[in-house]
């Protein structure tokens, strides 16, 4: 492998290691914000929200949000 490519790989690795991790309180805050915004549409509870994150090979944060719910809420779009 050429020197430049080795250097690029090393840099990407270092930057990936340096990435800030999301703390548990922050994850809980995000969960609670997701809950607040979706609560009007779905019949959900905060514990139904499953939030996972990882840092991909390019150093991007990837968020996996899984939500299970039994019912949607009935919304009347055309309020008179």
């Amino acid at each position: 492998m050429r020197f430049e490519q080795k250097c690029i790989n090393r840099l990407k690795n270092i930057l990936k290691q340096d990435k800030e991790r999301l703390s548990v309180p922050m994850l809980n805050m995000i969960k609670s914000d997701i809950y607040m915004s979706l609560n009007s549409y779905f019949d959900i509870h905060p514990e139904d929200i499953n939030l996972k994150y990882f840092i991909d090979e390019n150093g991007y944060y990837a968020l996996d949000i899984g939500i299970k719910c039994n019912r949607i809420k009935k919304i009347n779009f055309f309020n008179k």
Partner: protein
Amino acid sequence: MARKIVITSGKGGVGKTTICANLGVMLAKLNKRVVLVDVDIGLNNLDVVTGIENKIVFDIVDVIENKCRIKQALIQDLNYPNLYIMPSAHSYNCSLVTAENVKKVINQLNDYFDFVLIDCPAGIDEPFKRAVCGADEALVVVTPHLSSLRDADKVLMILNSYNITDISLIVNRVRGDMILDKEMIDANKIAEILNVKLCGIIPEDDNISVLLSLGRTVNKGCEAYSAFTILANNMFEDKKKLYDCTTKYKGFLGYFKRSLRKKV
């Protein structure tokens, strides 16, 4: 309304002050009213780079402490009447030098200039915050070396939490011969990895240190002159033109120069 641009890096010695002074001169040549503000309090250097160290009567700390009016602390450049320098103090011992007070000084310059270029100290602590606080744009300077790039990535993350609307990257000390031999990371690749737009490429140029020792900025005889001219023009363009450091190392003669440079 002035464009208030902080020139920052994280890592020290990558060329912030050099770029601040030379970009300032090039913008002044484009008939813009420019002020260079040295916020590197205690480790001031902008005065030496611009050759005004003997003309300083008042500095930014005096302005903050209300010992003088802002205009009294501004020093006009000898060669470019549109260019002014607001020097920093070589030492200070004053709790008034806060980010908020530096911001006030920078805001006072708003009406008199088109560009306020803020020379930021190295690091990410209090002095960094003082410099960044008053800016609405940032130029992040890096060299194509891992330690500089790593620090720049941290700076980019921190800048996100400020009111900075535009962040661009300048890659300094690029060696065209090493780029062609794939011994140095290409500036475009650096910008791609750091996920920031590239605004300028400045070549490694021995003339810079020679002229700097004389308190002068680059002149037409230097390779870096064209690079700084392009950089200054890029401050107004959405589509950035970039200096190609490899040109002089291409072709038969270029190959010869490359081999020669390696042997030296």
